[in-house]
């Protein structure tokens, strides 16, 4: 690195603690947002396993369903659900930061960018819920 001055004074370089993210709620929330990616990955894996079981026939699917009923899988999936919701909400809330949409020379407010994302989420979730609940009848 080039130093703009010839003289380099003596200084104290503070070290960042491993637990820096526990100091403020905003940092802890950021870390939780990053960790939520692991739970998103878990849900993807479960979905892929479900598709594979579906392809394998009724016996294999019944086994898969039995595995889903394991208490630890249920607990993990409940935790994953909350993390995935947290992941989606934080993602949609950040979308307006990255997208600048101008209409008639004025920048659209953040809510106008986030709202269609939430609306699409609601529509897709409703369709999936309708398909799943219809299958339960």
């Amino acid at each position, binding site marked *: 690195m080039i130093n703009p*001055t010839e003289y380099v004074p003596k200084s104290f370089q503070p070290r960042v603690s491993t637990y820096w993210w526990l100091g403020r709620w905003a940092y802890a929330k950021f870390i939780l947002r990053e960790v939520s990616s692991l739970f998103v990955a878990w849900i993807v894996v479960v979905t892929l396993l479900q598709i594979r079981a579906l392809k394998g026939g009724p016996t294999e699917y019944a086994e898969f369903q039995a595995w889903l009923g394991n208490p630890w899988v249920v607990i993990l999936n409940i935790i994953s659900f909350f993390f995935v919701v947290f992941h989606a909400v934080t993602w949609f809330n950040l979308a307006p*930061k990255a997208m600048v949409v101008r209409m008639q020379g004025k920048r659209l407010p953040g809510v106008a960018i986030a709202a269609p994302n939430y609306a699409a989420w609601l529509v897709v979730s409703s369709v999936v819920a309708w398909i799943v609940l219809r299958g339960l009848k």
Partner: protein
Amino acid sequence: MANRIQLRVKRFHPEHDQEPWFETYEVPLRKEWVVLDALNYIKDHLDGSLTFRWSCRMGVCGSCGMEVNGVPKLTCATFLTECAPGPVRVEPLKNFPILRDLVVDISDFLVKLAKSKPWIIRKVEKPLEEEYFQTPEQVDEYKQFSMCINCLLCYAACPVYGLDPLFSGPAAIALAQRYNMDSRDQGASKRMDILSQHDGIWGCTFVGECTKVCPKHVDPAGAIQQYKLTSSIEWLKSLVLPRGAE
């Protein structure tokens, strides 16, 4: 309301101290006083050796940024009454080497700022007699980013910069974006070579605290994410049109 308040101020003397330590002072608690007034009171009446930067006292110069109760703030814009009943913890900005007491070394930022080329770059300059006209809409495109006062609160709030000192950091990128969005500028490609590197925009994990602490509402986090989008589009274009289309 109590008429006095305690300040716990971080001290460091490079010639005597191995590491910083805290000293407690008691100052009058006046409703019109900001933290900077309290520091000046300490310097004038209690301890003349206390060292800190300040200049304008009105949120324009960007010199008096410090950590007040663990949050990066302009001390000229933080009222003592907001921190009552105290004690108020005053520390130098995080993520920078401490030179003495509340003064930090910002050389690293100055190098990074210069690298991001925060000035108008023209392929061909117009003759001096001619003007570069801009509509109010064109000014609006970059005005927000031009409000940066280099106070470095964003660097102090950014854990990425704290953990990876090679990261360009919020203000340098926001200021690059200020010129990229300027209709008079033609240097976006030159800045992209520097800022599209790993230590540029891609180092940012979007913690978002830089935007929250910015006293001028510059939104550096927004600038970086917008730059990521632009950079990705340019990368896609380079794949589709490998010969390039200027």
